[in-house]
């Protein structure tokens, strides 16, 4: 039985699929999507506790995707990851998720799980 249900969204399939598998090995229910459409398609109320979003997803920003997912599944928590350190990304990402839930690639898996637990227990993050 999984304690956390997570949806991983990143356009790098190699990355997101491997990460999902590794989370599964640790008993976390992890599914992944490589586009915003796919992510929204997978989403149904109560299906995921937390979403890990790349700030930059083709055709739509991670911030925009977060808003749409939030509408579809209120109460969901979010963590952003990025390969980019630009100021604009940082400002947007940390404003949305709080600077503590804005991670720069490559991400240590144990750190990611810690952050997910934190965000779910309400220590920080949005909503």
């Amino acid at each position, binding site marked *: 039985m999984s304690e956390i249900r997570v949806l991983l969204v990143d356009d790098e399939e190699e*990355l997101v699929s491997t990460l999902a598998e590794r989370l599964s090995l*640790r008993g976390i229910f992890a599914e992944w999507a490589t586009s915003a459409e796919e992510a929204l398609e997978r989403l149904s109320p109560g299906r995921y506790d937390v979403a890990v979003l790349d700030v930059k997803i083709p055709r739509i920003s991670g911030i925009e995707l977060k808003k749409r997912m939030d509408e579809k599944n209120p109460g969901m928590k979010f963590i952003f990851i990025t390969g980019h350190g630009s100021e604009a990304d940082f400002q947007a990402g940390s404003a949305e998720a709080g600077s503590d839930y804005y991670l720069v690639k490559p991400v240590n*898996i144990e750190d990611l799980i810690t952050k997910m637990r934190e965000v779910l227990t309400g220590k920080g993050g949005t909503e």
Partner: protein
Amino acid sequence: MESGFGNMIAWEKLKEFFSVKQDTSQDIPRYLFNYRRIWQVAVLLTGGVALVPLIFITLIDYQVTQHAIESEFLLRTTRVVSNSRRTISFFLAERKSAIDFIVHDNSFESLNNKGRLTLMLINLQKSFGGGFMDLGLIDSSGYQRNYVGPYRLEGKDYKGQEWYQKVVDHGVHISDVYLGFRRVPHMVIAVKKLMPDGSFYILRASFSISPFEDLLADLELDGRGDAFLINHQGTLQTTSRYHGGILERLSLPVPEYSPVSQVYEWKDPNGKELFIGYRFIDDSPFILMIVKDKHELMKPWFKTRFKLIVFLILSVTVILSVILGTATYMVKKIQIVDETRVMAFHQMEYANKMASIGRLAASVAHEINNPIAIINEKAGLIKDLFIIKGQYARDDKILGLVDSILNSVKRTGAITKRLLSFARNLEASIEPIHLKAVIQEVLGFMTKEAELRAIEIRLKVAEDISPFKADRGKLQQIFLNIINNAFAAMNEGGHLDISAEMETKGSVTVVFTDDGCGIPEEDLNRIFEPFFSTKTGQGGTGLGLSITYNLVTELGGTINVKSKPGQGTSFIISIPLDKEKGPDERDQGIACG
């Protein structure tokens, strides 16, 4: 001694004010003006325009005034000569006419009567005042037949005397002044009367020269003037004040004949300049001379000339001082403005360069990050499969290799994170600063070089430094410049000590101390000046430290330097902590309180 020293200091200060700095040891950047040249052109042009007309007009005035004064004196002398000539001519003509009248009015017999002749002399002396000394009647053989006067000259034979011959030849004669039988200077007027039978007799009167001397002495002459008579041979006929006694030879040359009064300038062998006026007195052997000392005459002019020269010197001094002062002031202002402009330009260029580096770093980091993340996850999965699922029978060697991959990924991640953070912070504005983290971040870029050159870096940051708000990018640039500078000064195996601590007055002090080559004392005051560089020709722009100085100033801080050549250098940077606390810290403050 002391006032001399004071004067020297004042002089040095004056020199410093009037000097326009142009360090020729450095290459002058082409976008800076040649201030010395501007200064020279300004001074020459304004000085020329102001001074040339002034000097020109003063010189003309000098010439005109001098000439006018000289002309005035020449004219005045000419007038005195003319007037005196008239008096003397009249004096002689009057006496000559009197003798002439007597000789023609009286018969030989009447003149030969002693009583009668005595009466005539008395009457003449009465009518004509002084001067008539005696009267004598000389017959055609040259014997003095009758004589009345103070000397015993009766029976004297004048046949051999020059004047006698002249009377015989010309009928009338006025003689030079001479001593004669009586051995007293006198002159003679003699008139011949020709009888119908061809014989003749001569009436001769002699005069003392005192009336002439009185007459000449009465002349009011300025400029140590001297008036006297000479004969055509240059023998003085009256006593002169400065040019010899009576019957002596005149020390001046005898002037050339002229029918009118003349005045000329003459320089005597001693270099004394004289105005000499003269007039030949008609029908007499006399030349009237009036000699004046030009130097004495021109004394009033010398006073005027002195005033003129003082005025010129004062004017030139004032004009030059104003021009030099103004030109120096203006050129210095131009220089300051120009340097500020170039500084701003370079600072902008520098900031742009840093921003470009930042963007490049960010894009490289981003490009690398994704593949690294994939390597990270793949290697992580391999490890997970070994450990969590227990697949592929546990193999320590493979596990070691995977760990090694993961370690490398971690290291690469650290580098890209640093790059990204650096790039991000370059653009950042005011934000909370963790001083230690900022210094460490900057040091991160230098660790490789430090390792290669065996430079030991010791960082000591006091624990009580709380986060403060400042421009992170500027701080990074300041620290990077100072550390770069220290690295440039150090040899292999050098030491760089960085310490930071709180100051009581609400600021934090960061000290960078290296044991490099140090800075000579004479350069210490100049190292923050723009374009000052000891690395000219080695690619140094001379702007690094001046940009640093400006950045520190922009943060409201101060930067100081202490150095001993051969021992090392300390840069002491003091940065004020933010006065207005950000919302985060305010909350913290309330929570803590």
